[in-house]
């Protein structure tokens, strides 16, 4: 009890101080709308978790708990939605992001006034994996199209090299222009088992916006995954944990009936990519400390993996 009070007081002090600074700064810069935005942000949770619903319903609930899509998208902006479409698998295998969720996200983006919503992934090629197979089999192409999302098959010509400040291993990377050009970047990974990194969630999903993902494998997966987040953090991370592939990841079996899938019917949402990964890891039944890139991401101050330090809102449908 005493412990609790202590954290509360510390938090109060911290927030008050930061709010004061923000307000002061805003007044100096003359941006009062920013001040108001911060005011609402204060009440916003760091992480929202919803369970026991369908993907689109859980998304809508989580988004309302988060404060609405208007928090992230201003009228006329372009949005890049990055699901995991890495493998040519049906949604039932759990290796790709749920198409129903993608559709709901795109609709919500347009409702918030987005001008264009792009959907794409850099697929893992030597696995029946041309973009066409992956996009179509995963159901994401149809889902995105039906919500007026622009589905983009990536090719080698649309990347631009960037340097990553403070990176230990991955000093440079070729990033897809859609990510560089879009005003808002929404990361929509699926939570699944991964043979080489234990789990694939939000941080790992960013491997699909660089050109040469095999370089990560060569020079150290965990460090590279964490390093990339020093360059770019998504504006919002939405983790699909509706169907969770518990083994045989990242691709899962070709036939959905062989898939070791658990229906966890959960959805997580956060601005903090490390926090959302940590929470998803717990949903999966593992400890965030044991996942290399989450730990490194926390150490490199990309985000906070200590969930007890965060304001988490949960909801069961």
């Amino acid at each position, binding site marked *: 009890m005493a412990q609790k009070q202590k954290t509360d007081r510390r938090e109060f002090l911290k927030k008050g101080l930061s709010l004061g600074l923000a307000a002061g700064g805003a007044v100096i810069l003359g941006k009062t709308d920013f001040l108001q935005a911060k005011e609402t942000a204060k009440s916003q949770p760091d992480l929202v*978790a919803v*369970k*026991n619903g369908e993907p689109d319903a859980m998304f809508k609930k989580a988004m309302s708990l988060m404060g609405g899509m208007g928090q992230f998208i201003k009228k006329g902006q372009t949005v890049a939605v990055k699901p995991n479409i890495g493998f040519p698998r049906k949604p*039932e295998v759990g290796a790709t992001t749920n198409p129903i969720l993608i559709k709901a996200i795109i609709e919500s983006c347009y409702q918030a006034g987005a001008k*264009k919503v792009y959907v794409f992934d850099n697929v*893992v*090629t*030597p*696995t*029946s994996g*041309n*973009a*066409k197979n992956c996009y179509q089999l995963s159901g994401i192409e149809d889902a995105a199209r039906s919500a007026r999302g*622009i*589905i*983009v*098959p990536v*090719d080698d*010509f*649309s990347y631009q090299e960037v340097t990553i400040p403070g990176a230990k291993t991955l000093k440079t990377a070729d990033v897809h222009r859609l990510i560089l050009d879009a005003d808002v970047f929404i990361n929509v990974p699926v939570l699944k088992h991964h*043979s*080489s*990194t234990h789990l694939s969630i939000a941080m790992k999903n960013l491997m699909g916006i660089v050109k040469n993902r*095999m*370089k990560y*494998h*060569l020079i*150290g*997966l*965990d460090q590279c995954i964490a390093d990339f987040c020093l360059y770019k953090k998504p504006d919002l991370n939405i983790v699909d944990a509706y*169907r*969770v592939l518990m*083994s045989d990841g*990242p*691709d899962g*079996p*070709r036939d959905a*009936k*062989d*898939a*070791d*899938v*658990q*229906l*966890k*019917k*959960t959805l997580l949402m956060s601005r903090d990519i490390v926090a959302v990964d940590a*929470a998803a890891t*717990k*949903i999966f039944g593992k400890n965030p400390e044991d996942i*290399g890139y989450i730990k490194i991401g926390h150490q490199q101050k990309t985000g906070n993996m200590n*969930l*007890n330090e965060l304001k*988490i809102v*949960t909801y069961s449908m």
Partner: protein
Amino acid sequence: MNPVRIRIAVSLLVISLFLFLFCGGEKISSYLSFILLPFQFVPALIRALTNPAVIFIIGLISIFVVTLIFGRVYCSFLCPLGIFQDIFIALSNKIGWRRKHSFQKPRDLLRYSILGLIIITVALGSMSLVNIFDPYSIFGRIITQFVLPFFLWIYNVVVNGMKYFHVYLYSKDTVPVVMSALFINLSFLILIVTLSLRHGRLYCNSICPVGTLLGLISRLSFFKFAIDKTGCNACLNCVTVCKAGCIDTQNAVIDQSRCVGCFNCLDVCPQSVVSYCPAVKNREGETWSPARRGLIIGGVAAAGSALLMITSGIRNLLRPVHAAAAQPITPPGSISRDHFTQACSACHLCVSVCPTKVITPSFLDYGMSGLLQPLMNYPESFCEYECNLCGRVCPTGAILPLSMEEKQITQIGEVDLLKDKCVVYINHQNCGACVEVCPTKTITFVNRANILYPVVDNQYCIGCGACSKACPTDPKSIIVKPNAVHKKAVKSLTKDTPIQQKSAIPQDFPF
């Protein structure tokens, strides 16, 4: 009905179907190959001799029968390279490069020695000369190396351009360029185009072995072209339109062995003295003797080649020893390297249709005996696990059709994990690129101190090369070693019925 019109209509239809065969994608290609290729002479002959299938034997017999009745109409109606040349001949007429053809002396020594040489080399177990001279295969290679890439290039340029209008389409992979094979094919393209522009169907009459062989048969054909000397006013109209250069007006003789049956001469004769009718009345006279000679030569040659084709023991004994230390890997369905090299006519249809473009033209990789025959281009690409298209389109039986289940356990090679190059073994850091992409569970992990080391169990391996393609090291740490004779792999069974789609909604959130 004007026979020339019919010929033009049929031949244009045939060549467009051939274009679709090579460029039309999976469904069109496999369907058209079944319709078109049994009626191509060399593929049908190879198939009938090596892996007889009813439709190919029917095709072969019908080519013989049609030639016996109508002469070498095959060359004008069905042969894609013949039609290809006709297009250039028509073009050169239009632009005025060459308006008039003239009578040419037969080049008997050249054409019969090429045919003879081909029969001998085939008997010795080398397909090289057939591959170089077979008209269908030449046509196939020209399409694969020049026409298809051109279409794809245009398509991809359009796809790329559309991006600026925010329309995003799937681009297509192009056939990798093998310079040496490209050089040979380019030489043949230039040779054939120049010959056709300057000399009409000279290739068909002096070089093409199929033309020579069918020419021998057509000497005996029931219908023949003939000139009635009495009514002829020597206007030479027929000579100027004869692409084959086989009308000798001085002696009023039409060389049946070189006539490609285009019907142009019938069309233009103002006196209607050029006729195409049963040849009974022409039986007497000097044309009879060469015909019999031709039949004897042809019969002996055909019998000899057939005999030697089936006595593979002799062929294996005489077959030139393969060169090169690194042996090529042959596509699934080709049974063994020997089977493949002795049945492939290098038409490159498989190269055209392969979705991952792993099947690539080669030059000398199979040694002198297998010039231009395609190989599996590892690690540039990999063999798609859920694809058996090459076997479905191959006309000669070099790649036999496999059901999807058979293909997925056909081991064309085995992998070799080079632990002295693999980053996991050297740096003790996780990689797992090969494990991610292996479709057969050949590569699995062994966990030592939370580092996942890949290990290989080759009994499951089918040699698809996905691991090698995915491997990030340079040079590759995992490579496919060829199986000279393909084997059967063990199908890795999935775990004993996993709990499927188990509902596991968390009772409480674990945070």
